């Protein structure tokens, strides 16, 4: 967020997509990069500090990529608003216009517009090393003369030419600010006129015309082939999916075990008491429940930045576009939705690659419907306890088929909701698909590393604070008011925790909402499970263990918990978990947004509480309605 007190000069980095603008920004600002959102919109904002050779510090703002000041997307609108001082932010003192030497003509289009804004412009002629290797020679001094702007030939990958670029930025005081003469709504004639100028400028600066590199043409013949392309893409996706699902397992177990040991150590160190209980059960368990997602996030972002950097991501969007258009999205939504099958959090963070803000929001809103790995423990507990392992068609059994149905149900509901959202309030207007496919190149370690570092850090910092707060709140609700210690002592140890929960505010709320859950067939104990798993659905298993008095260490394979489940009775002696109720419970967990971490990330990605609240409300309503219908249907069918 911009601070009023900032007196350091502001430099805006502007350029079309695929000019290497972000690589340049990363090299200039290094680890000082901060990512966030522009206020009120789902457009990512990166800012960083930079020290010039003369010792002055400046702020560097990485504007969203824009083909033109005549904005089509929210990203381009923000770039224009900042450059023209139409946003709440300070107007930049200098523009560094990034152009790729390999795409000179097309990238100069925006530069001819930037020139009319009245702010001094320095041109960073990026990727000169790549142009050289393609045999493309550009005479920078001629370009400077023809363009009427200072030009620094450089390479953001190697750092070549950065001394000169920094010197030109440092000279910024020498140019006065002029009046802004750029006219909005350019007529087609004006566009053609700009290209006539560009043809003249480029014609005098270089003798060659840029060609798509041969290696890219060959690779595209395979990777975007109508048959081989999708097959390779699914292979890549399978690898990504598998790695998030399984490779992150050991690291996640390590984090969980570490935090369990830490809270045990706190308990022994401080002894039994409210403070140690808050620290161990609220704070440490809360932090642990946040950090446990970090391995998945880092792995997914490793893959995403490799795919993005290599140029493959644009091809994947190209291949999947026709399929995704069926529900009103574009090919760019495929990867975030697919990776949500491991965990919605990295999936939602991956929607940053979707430029269209409405497509991005629709993808964010449906990603949590895809069955994630945290639903598995809940599914496993319920399925093992209630679904018989009766074989079907030899290889399958009812349990496997139930799990498959739940996965398919998640995917179907996500696509259905995307379709509804895209038909109603997220209807795209005037932004047809345009995918620019950059030449293939080997990923750069610096960019990949920085991506991992900034995304990991921002997740822990921003989402972490929200999740932690909710976890502590839930702990308080479960721990207070304290049950009578004398009454507790008279109970067998296994039932003490259950008695405490029953006495607590959470227990009270569980009973209070019982009438609301009765149409689904849930009793107040299940209600407590649902409530306590608001923060994280897998908590359901542990809470059920506590409520049914099996002890805290129960897991989904715990025989006793499954037996208790099967034998649970209502006061009138009837079974709690009849088959329709079991189906309703599964349906509820398939659709409900029982994940504080997801809500925290959605708040962070959309820049406010509006969308996480909407997400929670619509998913809860959907889950409730579907669970009700499933129970009613199953009861009618006589199951």
């Amino acid at each position, binding site marked *: 967020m911009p601070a009023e007190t900032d007196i350091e000069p502001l430099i805006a980095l502007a350029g079309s997509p695929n000019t290497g603008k972000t690589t340049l920004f990363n090299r200039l600002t290094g680890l000082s990069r901060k990512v966030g959102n522009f206020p009120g919109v789902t457009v990512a904002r990166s800012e960083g500090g930079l020290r010039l050779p003369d010792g002055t510090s400046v702020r560097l703002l990485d504007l969203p990529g824009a083909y033109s000041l005549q904005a089509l997307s929210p990203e381009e609108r923000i770039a224009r608003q900042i450059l023209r001082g139409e946003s709440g932010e300070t107007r930049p003192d200098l523009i560094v216009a990034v152009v790729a030497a390999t795409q000179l003509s097309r990238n100069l289009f925006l530069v001819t517009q930037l020139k009319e804004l009245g702010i001094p412009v320095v041109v960073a002629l990026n990727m000169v090393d790549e142009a050289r290797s393609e045999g493309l020679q550009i005479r920078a001094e001629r370009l400077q003369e023809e363009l009427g702007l200072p030009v620094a030939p450089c390479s953001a990958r190697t750092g070549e030419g950065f001394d000169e670029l920094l010197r030109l930025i440092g000279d910024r005081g020498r140019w006065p600010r002029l009046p802004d003469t750029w006219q909005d709504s350019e007529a087609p004639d004006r566009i*053609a006129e700009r290209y006539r100028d560009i043809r003249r400028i480029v014609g005098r600066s270089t003798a060659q015309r*840029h060609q798509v590199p041969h290696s890219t*043409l060959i690779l595209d013949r395979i990777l975007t082939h109508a048959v081989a*392309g999708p097959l390779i893409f699914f292979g890549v996706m399978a690898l990504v999916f598998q790695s998030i699902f399984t490779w992150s397992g050991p690291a996640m177990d390590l984090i969980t075990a570490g935090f369990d040991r830490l809270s045990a150590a706190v308990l022994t160190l401080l002894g039994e008491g409210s403070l140690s209980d808050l620290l161990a059960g609220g704070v440490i368990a809360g932090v642990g429940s946040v950090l446990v997602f970090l391995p998945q996030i880092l792995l997914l972002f490793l893959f995403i930045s490799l795919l993005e950097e290599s140029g493959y991501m644009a091809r994947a969007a190209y291949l999947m576009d026709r399929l995704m258009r069926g529900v009103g999205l574009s090919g760019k939504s495929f990867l975030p939705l697919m990776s949500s099958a491991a965990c919605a959090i990295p999936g939602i963070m991956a929607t940053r690659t979707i430029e269209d803000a409405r497509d991005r929001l629709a993808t964010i809103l449906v990603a949590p419907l895809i069955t994630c790995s945290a639903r598995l423990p809940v599914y496993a507990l319920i399925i093992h306890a209630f679904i018989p392992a009766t074989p079907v068609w030899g290889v399958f059994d009812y349990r496997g088929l139930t799990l498959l149905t739940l996965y398919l149900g998640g995917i179907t509901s996500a696509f259905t909701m995307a379709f509804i959202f895209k038909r109603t309030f997220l209807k795209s207007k005037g932004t*047809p698909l345009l*995918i620019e*496919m950059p030449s293939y190149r080997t990923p750069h370690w610096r960019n990949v590393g920085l991506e991992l570092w900034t995304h990991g850090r921002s997740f822990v910092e921003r989402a972490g604070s929200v999740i932690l707060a909710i976890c502590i709140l839930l702990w308080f609700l479960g721990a207070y008011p304290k049950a009578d210690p004398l009454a507790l002592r008279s109970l067998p140890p296994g039932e003490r925790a259950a008695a405490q929960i029953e006495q607590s505010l959470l227990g009270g709320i569980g009973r209070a909402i019982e009438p609301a859950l009765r149409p689904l067939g849930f009793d107040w104990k299940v209600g407590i499970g649902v409530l306590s798993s608001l923060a994280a659905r897998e908590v359901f298993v542990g809470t059920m263990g506590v409520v049914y008095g099996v002890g805290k260490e129960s897991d989904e394979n715990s025989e006793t918990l499954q037996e208790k489940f099967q034998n649970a009775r209502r006061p009138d002696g009837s079974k709690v978990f009849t088959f329709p109720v079991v189906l309703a419970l599964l349906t509820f967990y398939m659709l409900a947004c029982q994940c504080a971490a997801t809500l925290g990330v959605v708040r962070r990605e959309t820049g406010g509480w509006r969308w996480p609240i909407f997400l929670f409300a619509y998913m809860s309503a959907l889950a409730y309605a579907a669970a009700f219908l499933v129970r009613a249907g199953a009861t009618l069918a006589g199951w």
Partner: protein
Amino acid sequence: MVSGTGISEAFKQPAVQPFPRHLTLADIPVGGKVLIESLPDRTAFGRRLMEIGLLPGNEAKVMGRAPLRDPIQVCVLGALIAIRRSDALTVHVSPLSDAR
């Protein structure tokens, strides 16, 4: 009963038939080179196509088609760009014969 061929014909044709029917970018086979004649420059997207180099008078080459023949990959000013078939149908072109 609606005949099967009738349905598939309906899918092949653009929703709005320009009259007289011009050759569009969507009609060009992979590998074909064309000269851009005109595009809907009154729409924001038409202007955007011009801004990224797909403007009347420029050459373009169709490089490939995604599965189900959509979107279409085009090379213009040394860059690879993909647009949807429905958008390519609005770009009028004339074929260029290769000087081979």
